Every structure is written in structure tokens, then in C-alpha cells.
């Protein structure tokens, strides 16, 4: 049970300041265990990115608590690196290698020759060792996302946060990067919290999938999909169908109205 509380959100509510103030997330609770791949899925505007930003320390809840290994999260920090959806998430004035080295140096993870070696190691791990000396603007979208994953993993994260990392990629590249991410996980066993709006991605990548409903964001259902490792199986199809059913239900309009005026 103690292991289950590696990352714990308890009754977390998050609001954006107004006017008028907007309650984005209300009373969300869940825990993520060490080494788990935890996926949050939900319709646009359900507050899933808000939850991830709060875990990242970029936003502060107005109620409830977020703890990592029992310690409350207050600020952003390199033990919780985030991979963004935005391709432009590298410093354009550094090369690819330079971006990783800078991240390692400024966070005190490694310096000098060690930083260079570690940066090269992780770039090779995500399959872009050849692009080390290029500038970010010379890379394709898929390569930029690989660099972001390499940077995050090189920091030896306690918790890897990913905000729709493959959302802006074409379907083929998306599937390929999902597989690569799984291979990396089997290799390194990092703890992952990933946001997506793709049902297929959620079922394939997650041990557990948290389904959120909107207005305000809340937990709708928590589904264990850890037994599903491959797409194109009967289990995969069943869970996918269930999730699709959950996500495309008509919205509860009365409830939505109540909460809009509630804050």
C-alpha cells in the first residue's frame, strides 16, 4: 500500500483566476505507484493538462494536496521533467547535444565530459545520435519529440510527465514513437504520467487509464489496462470500445450549469 503512494493527489481542486474565476479541476484524487505508466484521458477542456501542470509544479491547487514520495510539490523541478506537445521545446541557440548538456549542467546532474557522454548516450537511446550537432530548427517534429524524451530521461527523473507528446505527429510516426516509448520503459522502468486524447494511445501505453469528465474536471473512471500489451487483440478492442463509450457520452448539461455558477 505504501508503494502505491509514490505520487498522490488528494482532493485536488485547481482554479484559474478570473474574472470570472474558472474552476478547472474539482476534487481529484488518485495515486501513481513507482514504475507505473499512468495515462490521463479526457475530452478537450476537461482539465487534464491542468492536472499535469499542477504535478509539474507550474500551477498551485486551491485545495487538496499533491505529494511525491510524501513531500508536497511546490515548484517545477528537474526531477519531474515534462515533455510538451509543442515541437518548439528546445533552446534554438544550442545544438541538440548542447540542449541536453545545458539541461544536465544547469540542474547539477552532470558537468564537463560526463555531461557530454550522458547526453550522447541518451540521444543514441532514442535513435537520434546522428543529429547531435544539428540545431533544433533543422529537425523534423518527430525528431524534436525524441530529443525532448532524451532530455527528460537524461535527467534521471523520478517522474516523467508527458503532455500529449505525440499529439501533433502524423498517425504512422505516432504509432512508431509509442512503440519506442514502450521499449524505453522496458529498458529504464521510469514512472510516467501521460496525457492524451487518443483512446488507442491510452490503452496501449498505460498500466492504468484515468478517464476525466469536464466542467469541472473530475475523475470519471479509473481502468486497469495493465494486462494489455499489444494492439490488435480482443482485449484491446474491448477496452477501447468501453473507453469510447465513456468519452462520447452526451455531456450532463444540468451539472455543467450548476458548476459554472457555483464558483
Amino acid at each position, binding site marked *: 500500500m505504501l508503494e502505491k503512494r509514490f505520487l498522490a493527489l488528494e482532493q485536488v481542486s485547481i482554479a484559474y483566476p478570473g474574472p470570472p474565476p474558472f474552476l478547472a479541476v474539482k476534487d481529484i484524487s488518485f495515486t501513481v505507484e513507482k514504475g507505473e505508466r499512468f495515462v490521463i484521458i479526457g475530452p478537450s477542456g476537461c482539465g487534464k493538462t491542468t492536472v499535469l501542470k499542477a504535478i509539474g509544479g*507550474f500551477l498551485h491547487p486551491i485545495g487538496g494536496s499533491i505529494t511525491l514520495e510524501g513531500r508536497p510539490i511546490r515548484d517545477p523541478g*528537474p526531477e519531474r521533467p*515534462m515533455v510538451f506537445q509543442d515541437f518548439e521545446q528546445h533552446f534554438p*541557440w544550442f545544438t541538440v547535444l548542447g540542449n541536453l548538456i545545458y*539541461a544536465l549542467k*544547469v540542474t547539477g546532474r552532470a558537468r564537463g565530459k560526463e555531461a557530454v557522454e550522458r547526453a550522447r548516450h541518451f540521444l543514441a537511446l532514442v535513435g537520434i545520435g546522428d543529429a547531435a550537432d544539428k540545431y533544433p530548427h*533543422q529537425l523534423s517534429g518527430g525528431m524534436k519529440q525524441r530529443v525532448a524524451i532524451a532530455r527528460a530521461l537524461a535527467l534521471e527523473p523520478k517522474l516523467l510527465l508527458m503532455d500529449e507528446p505525440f499529439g501533433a505527429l502524423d498517425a504512422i510516426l505516432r504509432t512508431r514513437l509509442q512503440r519506442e516509448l514502450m521499449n524505453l520503459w522496458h529498458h529504464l522502468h521510469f514512472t510516467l504520467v501521460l496525457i492524451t486524447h487518443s483512446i488507442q494511445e491510452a490503452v496501449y501505453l498505460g498500466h492504468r487509464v484515468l478517464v476525466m469528465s469536464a466542467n469541472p474536471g473530475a475523475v470519471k473512471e479509473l481502468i486497469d489496462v495493465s494486462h494489455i500489451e499489444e494492439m490488435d487483440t480482443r482485449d484491446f478492442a474491448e477496452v477501447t470500445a468501453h473507453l469510447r463509450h465513456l468519452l462520447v457520452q452526451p455531456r450532463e448539461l444540468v451539472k455543467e450549469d450548476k458548476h459554472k455558477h457555483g464558483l
Partner: protein
Amino acid sequence: MASSLPRILRLGQRAFARRLLLAAGLLVLWHFAVVLLRIPSFLVPSPISVVQTLWQDLQSGALNSALTNTLRLLVMGVGLGLLGGIFLAAFSILSTWGRDLLAILVSVFNPLPGVAILPLAMLWFGLTPAAIVFVVTYGALWPMAISIDTGFRTVNPTLLMLGRNLGLRGPRLVKDVMLPAALPHLLSGLKIAWAFGWRTIVAAELVFGVAGAQAGVGWYINQARYFLETPRVFSGLVAIAFVGILAETLFNLIERWTVERWGMKR
């Protein structure tokens, strides 16, 4: 295909050659206009006498030292303006007080031209290079602060989040993320500040000018006017134009080495 064209037309295809040709044509026109219309040389000298004077003063060092003096003060003034602009913009992005301070300072001082501050600078610093540096700094500070502030405020939010994710905050976030990210804005601000500074410094030197070993190019022109040495006035103007072209080239090179190489050019 191209090689079968007459030589003169092939030249016409190359922008640089075309411009060189045009410039030469204008010089020839100037020369013959002066000769044929018998314009007295104390009004408009021929280009040949201008080039002769230019060469002569470059040999004697009179023009070089004037140019060096002016450029030294200009670089100092623009440099101080750049530093001040960075600090003002950083203060403005880090606190709401700083933001309001910059807004007030810019709205009051930006419309007030540097030359207008000159009498005040002379009262405070006397007829010294410090007065000129002060005026140039003043002129460079506001465009620099505005450009850098705009640059800071338009940094891609994802880059800021990345910086914070790596544990950066406050001045360190400004220095490591915002400042390089604002480089395109900073460079265009620098170009404006340089152009302002150039105009201001020449005007300031024309108005009072520091004499002797520290005299600048404005003084050089004014002296020539005093002694009715019109070719010398022209050679001063040519020198100013030439340095302007050099500066433009230098800024373009800096852009190519930095923001263009990094794919940041707007």
C-alpha cells in the same frame, strides 16, 4: 544560356554588379555636371577632388582619428544604452513595479530627442566626451529597452516552462532563456539605437564639438566648413556614409551568425 548573352547584360543579372555600375554612373554624372556647368568647387567639388582630399586625410590621419574618436564614443554610448535597456526590460518583466516604471520612463523620454538633451549634458559635463556619451546613451536606451521588453514578453511560453522545469527562476531565467530568446528583437533594437546614436553624435559634434586630439568627425566637417574647404566637408560626409554601410554589414553578419543560423529569424 547565360554565357551567350553580351557581357553587359550578364552583369545586369547580378545585384551587386548592377549596383556598382549604377554608383559608378552616378559618380560620372556628378563629375561632368560639375565640370560642364562650371559649378565653383567651394559649392560642389568634383568627385575626384573629394576622393583626393579623402585619401590625403586618411594618409595624414586627420580623418581616421576623427572617425575613431566618434566611433569610440558611439560604441560606448550604444553599449551603455544596451546594458541599461537589458536591466530596465529585465526589471519590467520581473515585477509589475518595473513594468510601470518602464512604461512611464518610455512615454516621457522616448519622444524627447537626444539632441534636445545636449544643452543639459553640457551643463552637467561641460565640453567633454562624457557629455556626448551621455546623450548617445540617452538616445539608445529607450529604443533598446522597448525592443528587449517586447522580446521578453513574446518568448514562446513553452520555452519558459522548459526553463522553469529545469529549476530556473528570476534573473537566471531572464539571462539563460529570455535574453537569448529575445535576440531577434534585441538586434533590431540595436540597429535602431545605432542609427539614432549616429545621427545624434554627428549633430552633437557639429553643435559644440570637442576640439584637439579628441575631436570627432562632426568637428572635422565643421572645421572644413569654417575654412571653406568644401571637398573636406564632402569627404567627411562620405566617411560617415561609408561607416554606416560597414555597420549595416556588420549587423547583418551578426544576424547571420546567430538568429539565422538558429532558425530564429522572424
